[in-house]
């Protein structure tokens, strides 16, 4: 158990004992009446302030609100001392009677941070302590608090007699200072409430409203006192103010409760919003996947159509020509051997062409060199065949998983094809590196730039191919500044 917690528990036990002692004093008093009202107000408020204060102190040790509430609670019990029939205890009660009001001003002006932020607030609190402690002390030295309207109150044992006029003047001065002091406190409280955001008002409203009402009642009582009103009305408004103050700890608890409920609602609202957002994101992702899958299937068909067309327009035509040439040769072998030999040369040329086109086609479907000898050799081949000079700056050591290697090769092949077709570049560089669990590919040229990824299906197909491996493809191509194609494919 922490030392703070032990101290707070000790304070709590002390407050309980103090309350019980107060109860005994009130019940045993022969001048306090009505005893029930006095005991209820003193115990509820005293224990309420101490209990709430200790709780707040424990939860937020750095915030002065807890200690201030606790202090209000303890000093509240001074009121019970005034029920004592012992002159000494009665006098101590009279001295301490006003202290909780100063602490209350301090508490509410500093609420909820516990700090006095402005000079004006510090002045207000300093004046409050001055009026309620030194002035009250001096007043008690010259006054007899039980003198008026209190039959059976003990006489003041510390009174310096013969200065009743001075005591009266001090009391009047206290009242005259207290009126603007309390009024200013109400204004500060109101401005604090008005300046707070709606979310904070949930906590602030019960406390500040109760405080303002209590101070309002206190103000009425003070004005009545200064106006020389009768004891009765003053007493009623004072008890009402005390009752309002007694509600303050509970107002604080209500505020905290509302804040928690509010927070729960906020959390719920936030969770709902997050949930909706996640659902929307998921839906978009599914849609994206569906579109990408459709494009991949379509790209597969396109690829087959391309292969068929390439075969038909290329190798097949050469083979047809070869077959016809051979047929012609057969017819001329004997009649015109010279022409037959010429036709045979042509036939061999057709055969070479057919073989070359088949090789190109096979390489486009999947380059054998990539499977057999790896990326570096395959890229070397690409660079050799490229009409634009290509420098292979970096390739990773060792082999990568086949799909990653294949995607890497085709990204670079397509990028280099585009460089040759559109970039008007002087040269291109290729970099492939493994870093952070991924392979990073970069193809950069010094050409005209201005490439539009949305315009060509080749790049879109590459994007899908890379995305299928959870990778990303980025094309940066500002006009006149060359083009850089970068791709990143996860590769553990």
């Amino acid at each position: 158990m922490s030392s703070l917690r032990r101290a707070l528990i000790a304070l709590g036990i002390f407050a309980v004992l103090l309350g019980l002692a107060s109860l005994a004093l009130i019940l045993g008093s022969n001048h306090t009446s009505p005893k029930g009202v006095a005991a209820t107000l003193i115990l509820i408020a005293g224990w309420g302030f101490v209990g709430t204060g200790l709780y707040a102190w424990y939860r937020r040790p750095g915030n002065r609100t807890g200690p201030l509430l606790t202090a209000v609670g303890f000093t509240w019990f001074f009121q019970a001392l005034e029920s004592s029939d012992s002159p000494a205890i009665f006098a101590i009660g009279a001295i301490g009677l006003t202290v909780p009001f100063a602490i209350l001003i301090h508490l509410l002006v500093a609420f909820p941070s516990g700090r006095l932020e402005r000079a004006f607030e510090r002045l207000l609190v300093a004046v409050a302590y001055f009026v309620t402690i030194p002035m009250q002390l001096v007043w008690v030295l010259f006054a007899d608090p039980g003198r008026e309207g209190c039959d059976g109150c003990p006489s003041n044992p510390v009174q310096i007699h013969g200065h009743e006029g001075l005591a009266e003047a001090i009391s009047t001065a206290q009242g005259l200072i207290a009126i603007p002091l309390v009024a200013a406190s109400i204004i500060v409280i109101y401005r604090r409430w008005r300046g707070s955001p709606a979310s904070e008002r949930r906590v602030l409203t019960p406390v500040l409203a109760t405080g303002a009402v209590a101070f309002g009642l206190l103000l009425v009582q003070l004005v009545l006192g200064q106006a020389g009103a009768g004891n009765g009305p003053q007493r009623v408004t004072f008890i009402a103010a005390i009752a309002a103050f007694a509600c303050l700890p509970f107002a604080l608890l209500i505020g905290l409760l509302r804040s928690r409920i509010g927070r729960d609602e906020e959390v719920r609202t936030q969770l709902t919003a997050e949930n909706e957002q996640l659902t929307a994101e998921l839906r978009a992702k599914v849609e994206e996947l569906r579109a990408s899958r459709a494009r991949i299937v379509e790209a597969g068909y396109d690829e087959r159509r391309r292969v068929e067309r390439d075969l038909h327009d290329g190798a097949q035509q050469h083979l047809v020509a070869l077959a016809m040439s051979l047929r012609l040769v057969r017819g001329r072998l004997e009649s015109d051997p010279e022409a037959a030999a010429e036709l045979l040369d042509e036939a061999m040329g057709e055969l070479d062409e057919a073989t070359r086109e088949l090789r190109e086609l096979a390489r486009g479907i999947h380059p054998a060199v990539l499977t057999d000898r790896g990326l570096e050799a395959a890229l070397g081949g690409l660079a050799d065949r490229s009409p634009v000079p290509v420098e292979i700056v970096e390739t990773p050591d060792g082999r990568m998983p086949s799909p990653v290697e294949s995607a890497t090769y085709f990204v670079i092949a397509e990028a280099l094809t585009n460089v040759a077709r559109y970039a008007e570049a002087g040269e291109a560089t290729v970099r492939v590196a493994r870093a952070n669990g991924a392979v990073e590919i970069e193809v950069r040229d010094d050409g005209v730039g201005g490439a539009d990824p949305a315009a060509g299906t080749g790049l879109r197909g590459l994007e899908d191919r890379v995305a299928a491996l959870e990778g990303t493809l980025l094309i940066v191509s500002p006009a006149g500044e060359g083009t850089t194609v970068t791709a990143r494919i996860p590769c553990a």
Partner: protein
Amino acid sequence: MWIAAPKGGVTRTSEPAPMQDNRGVPTSVLIVDDHPSFRLSARRMLEAAGYAVVGEAEDGAAAIAAAADLDPDLVLLDVQLPDIDGFEVAARLGAAPDPPAIVLTSTRESSDFGDAVAESPVRGFVTKGELSGEALAALIR
């Protein structure tokens, strides 16, 4: 790569002087194909078989123009052309008064085109691999 075509992509290779081969069939021929290597091989083969190749066309539009211009006895017509396909060209040629005999050709089999060959106003179909003077003669006899 495309042949120079002074008239609608058609190369007139000799005066349209119809000749008769030993079987007495009309033999002035227009070759329509987008592949120059095929046109060259076909020309040699047909000329060796006694046909007179009067022109070549590289696409459907050029073929229609050439047929009107050269009035060949026979059009050897590739099915897959870069603009309109061979069936469409055959339909248009067949609609003209006194149309030429048309033989379709392709690297593919006739069955690859379904009923299109049978429904087309042509004398027949020969795959490019089987093309010969005899094969043509058998179809147009």
